[in-house]
């Protein structure tokens, strides 16, 4: 009995050693892969903490990229503050200490650039497209934006004051459709929640949100969404305490690896 | 309706119910037919109330006892505010044990009256008739009648906070009577009044109670209130009746220290053999009565004479060597509390107290004439 236990223990130890080796290999390779970019931008060794303010829709993909970053640059740490782009912009112009700002719309990024708080020109790194979120299995057989105008359906939109609402309005106007929702939700997550809880039959939200909700909703693409695409700009901030780290993080986001993570989350990167 | 009310009152008066405060002892309620027949048992933790009460219509009974004796519990049990845990409760032949308070033909005058502060005196009195189904106008008319009867016609529109203590008390009585109860309960009806008002209100209340034709039970810790207002006294201590009887009887023959103190008597328990009563302490008291067996001996403090030195030539009878343990002055009288051979209270004039140079710790001799003692069987 004792012997079996000991043998099993030895096995576990061996497995642990193996996995340790493999993970260190991985980090070594990714480190070398991304080392080219920071080198070219001329910044030196990356260290310390990188603080990233990012739009809420970036939460899943940026969290993954943050882990990748920490592995690639041992000893660094990436801290995130996810939230509505508007309130993040307000915090930054209000003096919140951050190194990187990734916004869900050029408009909110402009608030920060206008205040002179960015260093350099923001670059668009992904775009987000609208999608119709329906109940699982699409019981109402919604196939197009026009189907949403059926008055028997309870449809929620984002309020026009927030980016997803503005985009939806743009798409609706472009296609000449009149849609009266039951509610203009305060943000995209609230709109999606109404469908997840089956209180609404459909919502017009971002593809990334549909993707993140898994099988609690079903996404329906509609061609008009191409005309209302949201661009996400990213920029290093003027008051960045860790400029090298900020640049390295932006490089990672724009690298092939970063694009893969973002595409998986439903963003358009081309 | 108004005439009927009037008839009831005068009818009760002419029936002569309600005595003068002496005499009618003991045998009020008969247990069947009219009146109150109650055996109140209320158990609450370690406390147990176990009181039998039989009261005839027109009779006024006072429950007298120290604080915590269970008097108020008994009253609440009669009103239905505290449930009985045993016993019985019959009023005019009807069993009331399970009847909720609002359906009992009972009126209560609470200790601090509990007049509804948001209603005028008139509406306070009209409240009961309204609850018994009278129309607003009719209830008010009846209420006005009652207020008038109690001499409060001028205060009908006043809120309780504008009434004096005596007026509020009378409104409370009017309110309780306005439902024409078969049992009227009064909880310390005079306790909230100052001394001067008390005298006046006591006399008025006595008149109203004398006119009341149904059963009245008063709860009080004041012997004077009890004796003036009630035909019969029921003394309650520790949840039990310790003595019952007419006021004069109770005053003359107290059976517990509490009652003796209330009525201001020195009371001792002992074994009589002829004119001599041997007390538990070994002292003897000589009496005029001739008795044998267990007895009580009582004498008033005023019957005690004090001397600084052993009185020369005095017989050894009823002479005790005592020590002053306390002094209290009441006007021109001084009450001396004595310890020593026989603990007793003695009353003497302030002048006498000064001449004797009485002070706590002083030694005195106390005597009582046999003729001023009173012995009665235990």
């Amino acid at each position, binding site marked *: 009995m004792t012997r079996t236990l000991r043998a099993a223990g030895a096995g576990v130890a061996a497995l642990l050693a193996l996995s340790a080796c493999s993970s260190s290999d991985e980090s070594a390779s990714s480190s070398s892969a991304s080392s080219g970019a920071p080198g070219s931008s001329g910044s030196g060794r990356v260290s310390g903490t990188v603080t990233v303010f990012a739009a809420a829709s970036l939460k899943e993909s940026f969290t993954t990229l943050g882990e990748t970053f920490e592995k690639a640059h041992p000893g660094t740490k990436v801290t995130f503050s996810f939230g509505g782009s508007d309130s993040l912009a307000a915090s930054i112009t209000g003096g919140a200490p951050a190194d990187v700002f990734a916004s869900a719309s050029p408009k909110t990024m402009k608030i920060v650039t206008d205040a002179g708080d960015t260093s350099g020109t923001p670059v668009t790194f992904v775009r987000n497209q609208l999608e119709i979120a329906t109940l699982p299995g699409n019981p109402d057989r919604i196939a197009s934006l026009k189907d949403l105008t059926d008055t028997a359906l309870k449809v929620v939109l984002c309020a026009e*004051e927030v980016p997803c609402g503005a985009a939806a309005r743009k798409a609706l106007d472009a296609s000449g459709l009149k849609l009266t*929702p039951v509610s*203009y*939700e305060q943000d995209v997550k*609230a709109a999606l929640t109404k469908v997840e*809880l089956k209180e609404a039959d459909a919502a017009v939200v971002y593809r990334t949100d549909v993707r993140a909700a898994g099988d609690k909703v079903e996404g329906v693409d509609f061609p008009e969404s191409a005309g209302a695409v949201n661009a996400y700009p990213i920029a290093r901030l003027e008051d960045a305490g860790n400029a090298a780290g900020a640049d390295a993080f932006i490089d990672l986001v724009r690298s092939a690896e970063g694009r893969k993570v973002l595409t998986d989350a439903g963003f358009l990167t081309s | 309706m108004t005439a009927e009310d009037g008839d009831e009152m005068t009818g009760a008066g002419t029936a002569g119910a309600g005595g003068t405060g002496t005499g009618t002892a003991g045998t009020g309620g008969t247990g069947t037919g009219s009146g109150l027949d109650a055996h109140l048992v209320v158990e609450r933790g370690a406390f147990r109330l176990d009181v039998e009460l039989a009261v005839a219509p027109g009779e006024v009974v006072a429950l007298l006892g120290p604080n915590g004796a269970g008097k108020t519990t008994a009253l609440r049990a009669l009103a239905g505010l505290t449930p009985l845990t045993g016993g019985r409760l019959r009023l005019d032949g009807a069993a009331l044990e399970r009847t909720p308070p609002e359906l009992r033909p009972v009126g209560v005058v609470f200790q601090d009256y509990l007049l509804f502060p*948001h209603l005028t005196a008139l509406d306070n009195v009209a409240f009961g008739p309204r609850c*018994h189904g009278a129309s607003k106008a009719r209830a008010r008319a009846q209420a006005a009648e009652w207020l008038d009867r109690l001499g409060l016609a001028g205060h009908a529109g006043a809120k309780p906070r504008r009434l004096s203590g005596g007026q509020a008390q009378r409104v409370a009585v009017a309110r309780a009577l306005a439902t024409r109860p078969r049992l009227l309960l009064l909880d310390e009806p005079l306790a909230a009044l100052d001394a001067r008002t008390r005298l006046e209100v006591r006399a008025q209340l006595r008149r109203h109670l004398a006119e009341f034709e149904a059963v009245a039970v008063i709860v009080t810790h004041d012997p004077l209130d009890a004796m003036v207002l009630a035909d019969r006294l029921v003394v309650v201590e520790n949840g039990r009746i310790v003595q019952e009887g007419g006021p004069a009887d109770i005053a003359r023959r107290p059976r517990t220290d509490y009652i003796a103190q209330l009525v201001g008597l020195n009371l001792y328990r002992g074994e009589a053999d002829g004119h001599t009563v041997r007390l538990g302490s070994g002292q003897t008291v000589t009496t005029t009565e001739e008795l044998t067996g267990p007895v009580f001996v009582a004498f008033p403090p005023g019957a005690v004479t004090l001397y600084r030195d052993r009185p020369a030539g005095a017989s050894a009878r009823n002479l005790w060597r005592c020590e002053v343990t306390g002094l209290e002055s009441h006007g021109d009288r001084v009450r001396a509390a004595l310890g020593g051979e026989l603990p007793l209270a003695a009353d003497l004039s302030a002048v006498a107290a000064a001449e004797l140079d009485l002070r706590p710790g002083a030694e005195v001799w106390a005597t009582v004439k046999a003729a001023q003692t009173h012995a009665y069987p235990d």
Partner: protein
Amino acid sequence: MTAGDKAVLPRRRRRRAGAQVRGVPLPLLVPALIGLAFLIVPLLALLVRTPWSSLPELLTGAEVWQALRLSLLCATAATAVSLVIGVPLAWLLARVEFPGRGLVRALVTLPLVLPPVVGGVALLMALGRNGIVGKWLDDWFGLTLPFTTAGVVIAEAFVALPFLVISVEGTLRAADPRYEEAAATLGASRFTAFRRVTLPLIAPGIAAGAVLAWARALGEFGATITFAGNFPGRTQTMPLAVYLALQSDPEAATALSLVLLAVSVAVLAGLRDRWMTAG
């Protein structure tokens, strides 16, 4: 000022008057003034930063008045709902001994600490189209509450009710229960005693509770937007309008807040004169 309105009142009055004019000790005065400033400075800032010149323009939009009207209507309806169910609930908690009373009281106060958004989600799960109760309402009566004005009233009542219950229960506990006993001995059933004696006695406490509940309902945001959504004229109350305006036009948001502030101050001041001082 409910239970003790007896003959002893004058003495209490005198004592209270005597305590009014005394030197205030510094350890109390300084924090008190800081506290006052803490509450007042943000409101002052709102006034200072209000775009007074463009105010008329900002406030002439029909949506503003629509939202304000809806807010006042829903807050008042929610207060009425709270009164109808809250006063009896408070009475039950204060006057009736039953097993688990402490637990029930704790449950009643729960919405006070619950983030309103969570309250809104909870309401959806209970009364939503797919909720445990709402499903039956929908199936049997074709009644759905989310995205309706009734939904706003329910969400506001949910957060406002605890304020009323706590306030009224406190008043009831302070009130002398023997008045109810006195009423019983006069032939009043428990309900009559409650209606004709207890209710008038605790009226000032009920009024105070109702004002608190109304104010809470007027400012309610999280539960409302979660449960009832946001649609102008139907479910968009002032706080929702303010929040959304803040996303795009902070100046408009300030102006809207100012309107809400002015209206609530006016109403509360008006009520204070009528009710509060009467107690």
